[in-house]
């Protein structure tokens, strides 16, 4: 029966000690502990949140970078393409002008050649005329002395003439 009957002394001391204990713990232990825990949790929360924000900013920055990269690449491609086109154009133009120049030179050369030919023909014609006159002079002077010889001279002269003409032609 003693077991289930609260003793006066222990009841009194329990009330006193537990009351005091609770007061002291509340004031000097639970308050600082719970406040510190709360503050720490709060700061961890804040840190997590700011980390999240930083992560988002990082992601945004990354995507910005990506876009910049892409743009730069496109620009480079564009420039390269333009350069290539320009190169092709220049080459084509150079080719064209070179061709034209060549043609013009050939034409000029042909013209020159023709002119020289004309000149040569004209000169030849003059010489032939002089020669003919000379021959004729000689013929006329020879005819007067010898008839047979006259015939031979004429024949050789004509032969000469033919040969000359063939060479000219």
């Amino acid at each position: 029966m003693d077991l289930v009957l609260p003793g006066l002394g222990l009841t009194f001391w329990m009330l006193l000690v537990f009351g005091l204990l609770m007061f002291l713990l509340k004031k000097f232990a639970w308050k600082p502990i719970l406040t510190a825990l709360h503050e720490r949790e709060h700061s961890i929360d804040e840190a997590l949140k700011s980390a999240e924000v930083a992560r988002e900013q990082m992601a945004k920055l990354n995507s910005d970078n990506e876009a910049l990269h892409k743009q730069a690449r496109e620009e480079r491609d564009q420039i390269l393409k333009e350069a290539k086109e320009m190169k092709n154009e220049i080459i084509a133009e150079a080719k064209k002008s070179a061709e034209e120049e060549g043609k013009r030179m050939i034409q000029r050369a042909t013209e020159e050649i023709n002119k020289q030919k004309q000149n040569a023909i004209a000169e030849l014609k003059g010489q032939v005329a002089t020669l003919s006159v000379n021959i004729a002079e000689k013929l006329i002077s020879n005819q007067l002395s010898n008839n047979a010889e006259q015939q031979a001279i004429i024949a050789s002269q004509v032969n000469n003439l033919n040969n000359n003409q063939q060479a000219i032609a």
Partner: protein
Amino acid sequence: MPENKGLLILSKLQLFVLISVFTLFSPVFSFANEPVSEHKTEVKADTTAAHENHEISATEHSAAGHGEQHGEAVEAFNPGKMILDHVKDAHDWHILDYNGHPVGVPLPIILYDNGLHVFSSAKFEHGHAVVEIKGNFYKLHDGHIYKTDAAGTIEIGEKKAVMNAKPMDFSITKNVLALFIGAALMLFIFLSVAKAYKTRGKAAPKGLQSLVEPLIVFLRDEVIKPSVGKHYARFLPLLLSIFFFIFINNLMGLIPIFPFGANLTGNIAVTMILALIVFVVVNFSGNKHYWKHIFMPDVPVGLWILLIPIEIIGVVLKPFVLMLRLFANITAGHIIILGFFSLIFIFGQKSVGAGLGASVLSVAFTLFMSVLELLVAFLQAYVFTLLTSLYIGSATEEHHHAEDHH
């Protein structure tokens, strides 16, 4: 949530460490305690040399003018008496018997009987001597102090009730000393932890701090916050104090050597005060919905006559059950462990061999029970705190039915 889970795992880990430490040490303590705490049996079971001691002690007892009751106790081992003596409060802290003489720590006796009387419990000589203080005579009989005449006569009335008058006894008994030690330990732990929080600021917990913090966070987030509701912060100091008081004193009660091992949380006076505090707090924090629920329940008026008494009984019954549950669980744990040890001496009375054989089993069972008691130590503290939180929660919650009607 994952943070809480992590902390919970941590607390489980630390509990595991605690359990393993106790498991390692409990047999050592048990062995240290067992042969000495019940010398009476050893006297009976041991050799003739011990038997002579027994004879000497018996003669000494009779020389001290002692009654036949004590003589009987020496004759045969009485497990019931031994267990009850260990489980109950006492005026001195009995550690062991040596050569038939009890060895223990005498404690101060404080009596209020027309003035305050303070003296050492050693003066009672374990109930053999009558103490005279300022013309009053006191005698220790069955763990209680009675007023007697100069010869120390104890009048036994019907049903073995003692008829002598009892002075008001505010003695520092075994349990009171254990209470002081427990309170001092709690103050030491939590004040140093509080200091650690102050000096370390928001840094990660360290040492004692990391042992206590998971428990505090677990109680706050998993027990108190969900049970009490939005006003939980106001009740945190009380509930944490109650939890750690029960838990620490439960654990201390499991260490079987002075200055621990007192059955403090298994004492009805201690659990009664705890339950009383819960009763007062619950009813003083009860809002109008709480009182309306008791005195004007949501049932037809005709049923009020039936329901109001039930509700009022419920108000008292809740803390009453808290008191009984803690008392019964902890006392039962102590009784079972002591019971297993008694087996050694019961068998030892038949033969030494049987006693040795029984001791193997007994130690194994005690080891098992000690581990189980570690679980119970936590569980009972947890259950007491959880139920208190629920009672406070139901007393302070805003009534949803009433809100629906508005």
